[in-house]
């Protein structure tokens, strides 16, 4: 028996396999003329609550489909069922680290159940997590991040990855502002420090603040 150490040059991006699948998803979306939103946030920032408003407000104006990434439950999908919008639930509890984000393959597996040719906008509600989803492209056109003001002003500096990758930030739970020691100016400064000039809308799922503006933003792109 003879043993030798050999070195092999690899130069392969850690996420190349995922990115290739994301690109394949994107081609399917383009073919169906879908505008695809990857919605990301930490757990409980209000993604589903804002989606409920969005589906309600855009009914009859733009055809929205939803792909729900949830750890194990179908609770979020159940909350949206009353809108009779095409919804598919993707389970993320298989595989290593699978429960903390959607990847391109999980999204692909959900697409078979969605009538892509009958919708204008696909909103993908990612798993609530402030880090992992930002690393994994799923074939989206834009990333919309929901940030709740209950999370504190320093989050953009602590978790720049997701804030940097966002195309639009929905600053949610604005109704709670009077009850919190939250410095909005400071938060916006931190946001601009990591993602200068990124689009932002102040929202509240409780009062409906900003929902019109957000829906206009979405419809402008979805109906294009």
């Amino acid at each position: 028996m003879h043993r030798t150490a050999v070195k092999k040059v690899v130069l392969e991006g850690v996420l190349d396999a995922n990115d290739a699948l994301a690109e394949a998803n994107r081609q399917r979306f383009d073919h169906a003329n879908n505008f695809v939103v990857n919605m990301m946030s930490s757990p409980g920032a209000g993604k589903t609550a804002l989606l409920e408003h969005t589906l309600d407000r855009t009914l009859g104006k733009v055809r929205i489909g939803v792909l729900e990434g949830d750890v194990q439950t179908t609770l979020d999908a159940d909350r949206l069922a009353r809108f009779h919008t095409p919804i598919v639930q993707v389970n993320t509890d298989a595989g290593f680290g699978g429960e903390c984000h959607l990847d391109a393959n999980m999204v692909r597996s959900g697409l078979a159940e969605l009538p892509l040719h009958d919708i204008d906008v696909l909103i993908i509600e990612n798993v609530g997590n402030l880090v992992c989803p930002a690393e994994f492209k799923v074939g989206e056109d834009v990333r919309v991040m929901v940030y709740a003001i209950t999370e504190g002003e320093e989050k953009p500096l602590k978790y720049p990855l997701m804030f940097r990758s966002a195309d639009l930030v929905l600053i949610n739970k604005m109704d709670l502002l009077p009850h919190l020691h939250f410095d909005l100016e400071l938060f916006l400064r931190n946001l601009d420090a990591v993602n200068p000039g990124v689009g932002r809308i102040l929202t509240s799922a409780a009062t409906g603040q900003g929902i019109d503006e957000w829906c206009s933003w979405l419809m402008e792109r979805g109906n294009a």
Partner: protein
Amino acid sequence: MHELAIAGHVVDIAARHADGRTVTKVFLKVGHLRQVVPSALSFSFDLVAQGTTVEGAEMVLEEVPAAGRCQDCGTESVLKSFPLLCEACGESNLQITRGEELYVESLEMEEQQNNEELIADR
């Protein structure tokens, strides 16, 4: 958790390139802007590698500091914190040139050949 998912991909890549050979080292480049915690990645790597041809391999992680070229004045700056600013003119109009790396650079493997094969190779 982020590191666990990344480690899974690193092990997949290493195992595929090793093609059955035993991997002893995996050299990885990680940019500072990737928000990867090296100790968490090492720990995850050891965990995920168990039961694969990469089990027991050492992950050698090289961190790459962030840098960017100013689109206004052309200066290349090393970027240490947010906001990312040109160190010459102070503007934020930067094109990131380093710090977003996340790739497997190379592998070190054990080649196991018996003497007959070695002779046959020649």
